[in-house]
C-alpha cells in the first residue's frame, strides 16, 4: 500500500473562462440567501434554557392565554447564523463612506459602547432610589454642562428621544410660553428647505405652517421676504423653525437679523440642530439668538444610528423658555449638588414645566456614549472635528464642481455640499439612477431629492471621519460615473444596482397591497 501524493492543483485552470453560473442555492459565495425565521425555525422548541419552578397555584384570575402563540424558537447556532447572514446584507459606516447628507454618518467609537455597558450605567433602573444612582445624575449633569457650554445657553431639556421628539419638545415649550403670556398665535414659519419633521411637528401642535421663500441665488432665507411675511401675519406668528446651517449646506448669514425680526414680533426662534456638526466650537447658537434647538446626539456626537435609532435629542433652551422645560430636569442646588426634579410636587417658584416628553429620564445609554465622545475630543478635538467636516465637504465640492452642478455657484459650503441634477440634463439618467449606480461602486448614495428647493437634489456629507485617500477615491468614482452618463452609457444607470444583494425593489407594488407580516402559505391544492 502506498500513499497518493499527487497533491492538488494550486493555480486556476489555464482555460478558466469568465461566466456567471446559476447556483442551486441562489447563493453567490459569501452573498447568502436567507429565509425568514418563520420559514425555517421550529415552533415547539426554544433556544433558551430555564429551570422551571415546582408546581404552584397560579393567580392569573382566569386571564391565561388561550390562542396558540406561534413563534419559532431558534437554537443559538441557528440564531447566530441567521442574524450574521442578515447583517451581511447591510451597508454600514464601518464598511464604507456613507455620505448621507444631514444625517452625519460619522465613525462610532467603540469606547463609547464599552462605557454604556458598564453595569453602573447599563444595569440601573430608572426608578430605583436616587440615593443609589448619584453617578447617573452626575453623568446627565455633566453632559448637560457640555451641551450648554457648546451652545452658549443655560438650560437644556435632556429627555427627548430623538431629533423629531426634540423638535416637539422645543415647540411645546414655545407654545406653553405663549399661553403663559396670554397669547395664542397660530402660525409657524418654515422655509421650503426644512426637514419634513419641522412642518410635521408644527402641525402636530395645531399650528398652521406658512412657507417662507428662499433666495433664488443661494437658498438661504430672504430677510426682506421674512419681514414681509411677519408683517402680513402681525401678532399671529408663534415661531420660526429654521435649520442652520441649512439643508443646502450653507450658513444662514442673516441669522442674527432673522432672530431679531422674530423676537421683535414676540415670536420664538426654533433652530433645527441636525447640522450642528458644522459649527461646534466655531459658533454658539445662543449667541445667534436661538431660543430652542435640539441636538441629535446620534449625528453630531456619534451615538450609533443603529439601523434607524435609537437616537437622542436634547433641546437647549434660552432663558425665556427655560422655565417651561419638561419634567424631569436637574436643578442646581448649591452645596447639595444636582437634584433630579421629576414630579410637579417638587417644583419651586418660577419652574413651569409644560409636562413630560417620555416616561423616565430619556436616553441614558446615548448620554453615556455622547459624553464619552465629547470627553475624548475635548474642546480642541471638537473644534478640529467640525473644521475637518467642513474641509472634507469643500474638498469634495471642488473635486466635482466642474462636472456636476452646484445650484448656487462655486462658493464655500459648510459640512455638506448640495448638487442638483442639471448636469444630467439630456443624458437620460436621473438622480435616482445615479445614486443606484453608486451602490455598484461600493458606496452608499448621498441624500437624494432633498432638500426640495433644487431639482433632483444630491446632498453629500462626507463627515470628518474620512481620510483624504478615501475622499480622492470617492471623487474619482463620481467623476467616472458622470463621464459615463454624459457618454451615453445609460445601461450602467438604468438597471443599477447590479451587484447588491437585491436589485431595484418595487416600492409601488409594496404599497399597493401591503404585506406587513409573514403569513403561513396556504397548503398546496392536492392534484386531482
Amino acid at each position, binding site marked *: 500500500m502506498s500513499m497518493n501524493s499527487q497533491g492538488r492543483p494550486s493555480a486556476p485552470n489555464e482555460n478558466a473562462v469568465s461566466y456567471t453560473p446559476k447556483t442551486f442555492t441562489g447563493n453567490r459565495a459569501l452573498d447568502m440567501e436567507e429565509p425568514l425565521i418563520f420559514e425555517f425555525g421550529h415552533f415547539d422548541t426554544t433556544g433558551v434554557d430555564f429551570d422551571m419552578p415546582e408546581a404552584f397555584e397560579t393567580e392569573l384570575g382566569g386571564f391565561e392565554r388561550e390562542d396558540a402563540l406561534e413563534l419559532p424558537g431558534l437554537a443559538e447556532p441557528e440564531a447566530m447564523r441567521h442574524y450574521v447572514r442578515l447583517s451581511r446584507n447591510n451597508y454600514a459606516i464601518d464598511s464604507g463612506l456613507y455620505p448621507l447628507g444631514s444625517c452625519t454618518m460619522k465613525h462610532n467609537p467603540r469606547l463609547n459602547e464599552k462605557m454604556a455597558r*458598564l453595569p453602573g450605567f447599563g444595569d440601573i433602573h430608572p426608578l430605583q432610589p436616587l440615593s443609589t444612582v448619584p453617578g447617573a445624575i452626575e453623568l446627565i449633569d455633566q453632559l448637560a454642562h457640555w451641551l450648554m457650554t457648546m451652545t452658549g445657553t443655560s438650560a437644556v431639556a435632556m429627555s427627548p428621544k430623538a431629533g423629531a421628539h426634540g423638535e416637539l419638545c422645543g415647540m411645546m415649550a414655545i407654545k406653553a410660553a405663549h399661553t403663559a403670556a396670554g397669547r395664542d398665535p397660530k402660525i409657524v414659519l418654515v422655509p421650503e428647505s426644512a426637514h419634513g419633521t419641522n412642518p410635521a411637528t408644527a402641525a402636530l401642535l395645531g399650528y398652521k405652517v406658512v412657507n417662507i421663500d428662499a433666495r433664488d441665488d443661494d437658498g438661504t432665507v430672504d430677510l426682506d421676504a421674512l419681514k414681509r411675511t411677519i408683517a402680513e401675519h402681525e401678532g399671529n406668528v408663534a415661531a420660526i423653525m429654521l435649520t442652520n446651517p441649512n439643508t443646502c449646506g450653507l450658513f444662514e448669514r442673516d441669522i442674527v437679523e432673522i432672530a431679531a425680526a422674530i423676537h421683535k414680533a414676540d415670536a420664538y426662534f426654533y433652530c433645527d440642530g441636525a447640522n450642528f456638526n458644522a459649527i461646534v466650537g466655531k459658533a454658539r447658537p445662543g449667541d445667534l439668538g436661538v431660543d430652542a434647538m435640539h441636538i441629535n446626539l446620534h449625528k453630531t456626537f456619534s451615538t450609533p444610528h443603529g439601523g434607524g435609532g435609537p437616537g437622542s435629542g436634547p433641546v437647549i433652551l434660552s432663558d425665556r423658555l427655560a422655565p417651561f422645560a419638561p419634567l424631569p430636569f436637574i436643578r442646581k442646588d448649591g452645596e447639595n449638588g444636582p437634584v433630579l426634579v421629576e414630579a410637579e410636587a417638587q417644583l419651586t417658584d418660577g419652574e413651569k414645566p409644560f409636562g413630560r416628553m417620555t416616561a423616565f429620564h430619556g436616553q441614558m445609554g446615548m448620554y453615556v456614549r455622547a459624553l464619552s465622545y465629547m470627553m475624548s475630543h475635548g474642546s*480642541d478635538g471638537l473644534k478640529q472635528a467640525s473644521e475637518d467636516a467642513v474641509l472634507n465637504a469643500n*474638498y469634495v465640492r471642488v473635486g466635482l464642481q466642474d462636472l456636476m452642478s452646484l445650484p448656487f455657484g462655486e462658493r464655500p459650503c459648510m459640512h455638506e455640499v448640495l448638487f442638483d441634477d442639471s448636469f444630467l440634463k439630456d443624458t437620460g439618467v436621473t438622480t435616482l439612477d445615479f445614486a443606484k449606480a453608486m451602490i455598484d461602486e461600493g458606496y452608499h448614495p448621498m441624500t437624494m431629492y432633498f432638500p426640495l428647493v433644487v431639482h433632483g437634489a444630491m446632498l453629500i456629507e462626507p463627515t470628518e471621519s474620512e481620510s483624504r485617500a478615501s475622499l480622492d477615491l470617492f471623487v474619482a468614482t463620481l467623476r467616472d460615473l458622470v463621464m459615463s452618463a454624459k457618454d451615453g452609457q445609460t445601461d450602467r444607470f438604468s438597471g443599477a444596482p447590479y451587484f447588491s444583494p437585491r436589485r431595484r425593489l418595487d416600492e409601488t407594488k*409594496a404599497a399597493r397591497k401591503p404585506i*406587513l*407580516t409573514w403569513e403561513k402559505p396556504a397548503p398546496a391544492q392536492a392534484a386531482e
Partner: protein
Amino acid sequence: MRYLPLSNQDRADMLTRIGVDSIDDLFADIPQKARLNGLMDLPRRASEMQVERQLSAMASKNVSASSVPFFVGAGAYKHHVPSTVDHLIQRSEFLTSYTPYQPEITQGTLQYLFEFQTQVARLTAMDVANASMYDGSTGTAEAVLMAHRVTKKKKAVLSGGLHPQYREVVEGLSELSSHDVVSMPADPMGTEDILAQIDDETSCVVVQSPSFYGQLIDLKPIAEKAHAHKALLIAVFTEVVSLGLMEPAGTQGADIVVGEGQSIGNGLNFGGPYVGLFATRQKYVRQMPGRLCGETTDADGKRGFVLTLSTREQHIRRDKATSNICTNSGLCSLAFTIHLSLLGSKGLKQMATICHANAVNLKKGLSGVAGVEVLNNAYFNEFTVKLPKSADAVVEALAARGILAGVPVSRLIPGQADLENLLVVACTEVNTQEDRDAFVAALKEVLA
C-alpha cells in the same frame, strides 16, 4: 486626535486645492461678532484610558441591578438577556447603518424589521405592527393621536391604572395640541368604573393591563362599551413578557395595542433607550404612526423588503403627516427580535411562568409580614403592597440594607395621602429564593 484621519499636511494641501488661505475662510458666512475665537471653556482631548477612568468612576457610584436582590419594576424590568443578543447587535453592519433608505443595501435591517413586525403582531394578536416607536410612553401618546384621527373625535379617557408617567406624556401633548383628556384617579385594585366615563364624545379609552399596580384588567367589557360609542380601545402594557402567558389585548377587542418592549432583549439603561411596540387592525393601517416594512420583489423577481406606506410620513407629507417620527428604535427592536427568536413561544411561556411563580412566592412571603397587605388578586409578575408606614421611607431603609425593594407609588404620584404607603413590587426570572427570603426578612426588620 485618534478619530480624525487627516494629517496637518493633508489639511494644508486640501485648503490649497480648495483655493482658500485658511480654514476660517470656509466659515466666512458666520457673522464676525458671533464667531468663537479660541477654544470653548471645556477640558481638552483625552485618551481612551483617561475617559474610561473618569466614566468608570462615575458608574461605580451607582448600585447595579445585578449586584443586589432586585424587585424594582413599574415600567422597566430586569430580565436575563442571552449573550448572543448583545454580540449580534454590535455587528458593525447593524450598529453603524442607518434607516434603510436604500433597500438594495439594507436588506439585513429590513428583513429583521419584517420579522419584528410579525412577532409583535402575533404577541398582541393584532393584524399589523409597525417597526417600533421610541418607547411605551411616547407610543401611547401617538396611539391617542391616531385614535383622534380615526374617530374624528378628540376626547381620551385614561384609566387610573395607566402608568402615571405615561399619563403625564398623554396629558401634556393633549393639552398643547388642543385635545381633551379625562384622567381617572389612581386605581390600585382595578375597581374603577371606567365604563361610566365612555360616551359619544369619547375618541378612545386607554387601559393598561397588567396595570401600573400589577392588577389584571378584563378588557372585553371596555371594548364593547367603547365600540358601542364609536370609540377605540387602546390597550397598554409595560411588561411584554406577560404576553407569553396572558390573554392578549387583540383577542379582547382592542383596536390599538401599544406597550414597552424593553423586557425582551434590552437592558435597564436607567430608562432608555427602550423600544415601543405598536400594533393595530388592518383597517387602520394608513392612520398608523411610524415606519412600516413591507414585502415586495426586486428587478430580478426575488423577494425583498422595503419601507412602505411612506405617504403617511413626514418626509413626504410634511404638515399632513400622521406623526413627526423619523428615527425610531431600530437597534433596540433588533435586540428584541433576536431575543424573541431564541425564546420562541415555548421559551417565552416558560420565562413568563417563572416570573409569575416568583411573584406568587414573594406575595406569600410578604403577606406573612405583620401589617403588610397585598392589594391585587389577579396579577402577573408585579403587585402593590400596602405598608404600615411610608413606602418611600421603607424603600430607603431597605436600600441601606442592600435590597432594592420596588417603587413607592409616591415617587410618581407625590402628595396623595392614600397612596403614601403603597409599594409596587416586581419579580422576574432573575430573582432567587434567597433574594425573596432576604427581602421578606429585611422588611420584617424595617417594620419592627
